[in-house]
């Protein structure tokens, strides 16, 4: 048993292939995990603070800058919150196109994550560039799908990083029918590629891991929830965005600039696998068929299924975009006029990495009095650490340091943590 007596200190100073900067410290003493910390050292960027005093028309452009990979999530959530407070009813065109726009981000972000960040681990590669040498067709397909997602964002936002198309009340401009026709053809052509991606992703051998956790995701009566719906949990919770803070709490750990979220005193899961666990009954027929073909049983308690879940959501997003762009017509106006009003605005949407929640207190002139933004990565933070402990024990602590480190990295990447987003910042003196 001398093997178990050793003291192991694994320190990963910079986590590769995650967005933003984080580090991992693991100390094993006498066969037990003595310390396990996912440290975030992305410095705070104080978004919630400098939104104060800003006019509502500036918010979509400012919150986009929280994350270069999921700017649409931030824009759409802020717009949803403010439109609700201001009593704005979007035109059916704008409502549908918000979802299409958001689908573009899911396609882009998920494909980037699968191919550039997560998959190399499972093929013994260090990067997508190495992976491209042994799986060139799969990588090129992935990069094409990612590019298509970017193009769909571009159609509505003029660019895919910090797009400029969203305004409170709709969009600044509407794409021409000719542009949408071209886009539809490309989306249609991508369907078989996305189906092949699901089969490929499902064929990647992943560790068997079984953990108990609560899944939290939005639910909508008709849709696979993305840009609208209430907040649901696998234990039966169903609330509106305005009740989020009554059920979910945040705290800061001494070692991190990120904040941790708890639900009923426990960590919980948000993101693609949580969504699939809760909403697989809302998938279109064709997507459900493909999912059944993979043999994935839902709800799943193995976070390594996150990769397949992302692939499934890419196909879903393609189907949704095509459905909503069918019979496209340019609107008379892409936006409706807005009159600001004082009050508290709540909004939530499903960012690629999971539930994103915003709260804005607004004055009568339409300026921000206070803002609070809870991104998915800080909600997953506690879950990632709990998962690391459990899955390391499952994996076996007697593996060599390098194997332990790689396993930890794989586990962390399942969550696709976006550390840039994770560093939001909360006024702990908020009264409730």
């Amino acid at each position: 048993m001398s093997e178990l007596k050793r003291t192991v200190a694994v320190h990963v100073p910079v986590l590769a292939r995650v967005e933003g900067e984080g580090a991992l410290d693991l100390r094993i003493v006498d066969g037990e995990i003595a310390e396990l910390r996912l440290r975030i050292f992305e410095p705070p960027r104080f978004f919630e603070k400098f939104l104060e005093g800003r006019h509502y028309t500036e918010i979509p452009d400012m919150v986009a800058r929280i994350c270069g990979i999921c700017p649409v999530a931030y824009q759409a959530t802020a717009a949803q919150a403010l439109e609700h407070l201001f009593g704005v009813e979007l035109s059916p065109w704008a409502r549908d196109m918000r979802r299409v726009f958001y689908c573009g981000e899911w396609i882009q972000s998920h494909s980037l994550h699968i191919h550039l960040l997560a998959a190399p681990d499972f093929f013994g590669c260090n990067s997508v560039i190495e992976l491209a040498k042994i799986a060139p067709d799969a990588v090129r397909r992935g990069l094409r799908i990612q590019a298509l997602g970017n193009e769909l964002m571009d159609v509505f936002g003029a660019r895919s990083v910090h797009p400029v198309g969203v305004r409170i009340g709709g969009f600044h401009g509407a794409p021409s029918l000719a542009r949408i026709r071209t886009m539809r053809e490309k989306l249609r052509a991508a369907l078989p590629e996305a189906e092949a991606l699901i089969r490929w992703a499902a064929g990647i051998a992943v560790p068997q891991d079984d953990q108990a956790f609560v899944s939290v995701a939005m639910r909508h009566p008709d849709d696979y929830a993305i840009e609208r719906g209430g907040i649901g949990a696998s234990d039966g919770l169903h609330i509106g965005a305005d009740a989020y803070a009554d059920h979910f709490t945040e705290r800061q750990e001494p070692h991190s600039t990120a904040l941790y979220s708890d639900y009923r005193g426990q960590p919980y899961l948000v993101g693609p696998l949580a969504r699939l666990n809760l909403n697989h009954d809302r998938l279109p027929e064709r997507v459900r068929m493909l999912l059944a073909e993979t043999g994935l049983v839902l709800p799943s308690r193995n976070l390594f299924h996150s990769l397949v879940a992302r692939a499934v959501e890419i196909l879903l997003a393609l189907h949704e975009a095509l459905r909503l762009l069918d019979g496209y017509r340019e609107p008379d106006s892409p936006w409706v006029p807005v009159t600001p009003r004082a009050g508290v605005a709540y909004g939530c949407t499903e960012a690629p990495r999971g539930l994103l929640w915003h709260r804005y207190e607004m004055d009568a002139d339409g300026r921000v009095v206070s803002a609070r933004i809870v991104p998915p990565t800080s909600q997953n933070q506690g879950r990632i650490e709990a998962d690391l402990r459990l899955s390391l024990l499952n994996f076996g602590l007697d593996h060599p340091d390098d194997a332990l480190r790689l396993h930890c990295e794989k586990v962390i990447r399942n969550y696709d943590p976006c550390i840039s987003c994770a560093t939001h910042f909360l006024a702990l003196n908020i009264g409730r």
Partner: protein
Amino acid sequence: MGGSTVRPRVAVHKFSSCDGCQLAFLNLGESLLDLAQRVELVHFAEAGPLDPDAEVDVAFVEGSVSTPEDLDRIQRIRTHSRLLIPIGACATAGGIQALRNDVDGAQWVAQIYSHPEAVASLAHSTPIAAHVKVDFELWGCPVSGPQILQVVNALLLGVAPHDNVDKVCTECKRRGYPCVMVSRGVPCMGPVTRAGCGALCPGLGRDCYGCYGPAENANTDSLSAQFRGLGLGAAAIEQRFRSINSQAPAFFAAADKARAGRDE
């Protein structure tokens, strides 16, 4: 590419940012694989390779300097890099997070975090050029794939990259977009903002909000006067300049003037 060709060694470093400018590489699609043939990506944490202290021909730097540790890291990068090129508004002007520079950021941390000691944050968010010599700057929030490729291609050819210091207005004219300010009275930052984006915002019929930073010889006084004529108050004019590139000297000065209410 023949095995005998020596490929330039390239690093991509991240400081305080949203990661969006690195996406100019990661969103290249299949061109990313071609790029990886032409240059050797030595350090690029988000893409995989990790070797922050390797000697490189070109270091692209995303993000602003905003922690005590950053101060040391940017010096090391400078030492190891033949050319150092900041990319994006955070690296060239401190970024949107530099909006904290006007307030006491450290005090915010102490007031709000229950464990402020874990939050190592400098009072100011500053551009890379405030700390080390830079060889070329790419402005934009975010920089685009074509901008990056253009710089890489120029360097591969051994020529100086082209610096676009024109105004967004020139891009509108070139593309035949009607002027949103003249035709609809929308307070547009295009007349003082650096070109390079392709006039995306006016192309959608909306105002430019200055995400590419100030153009050369930006006449901010004249634009402020124009904004006043459109009915904007001093506070609104100040906020137009105090946004994504608030610390860029031309915008900083214009915001200051608006605040002091002493323009012309």
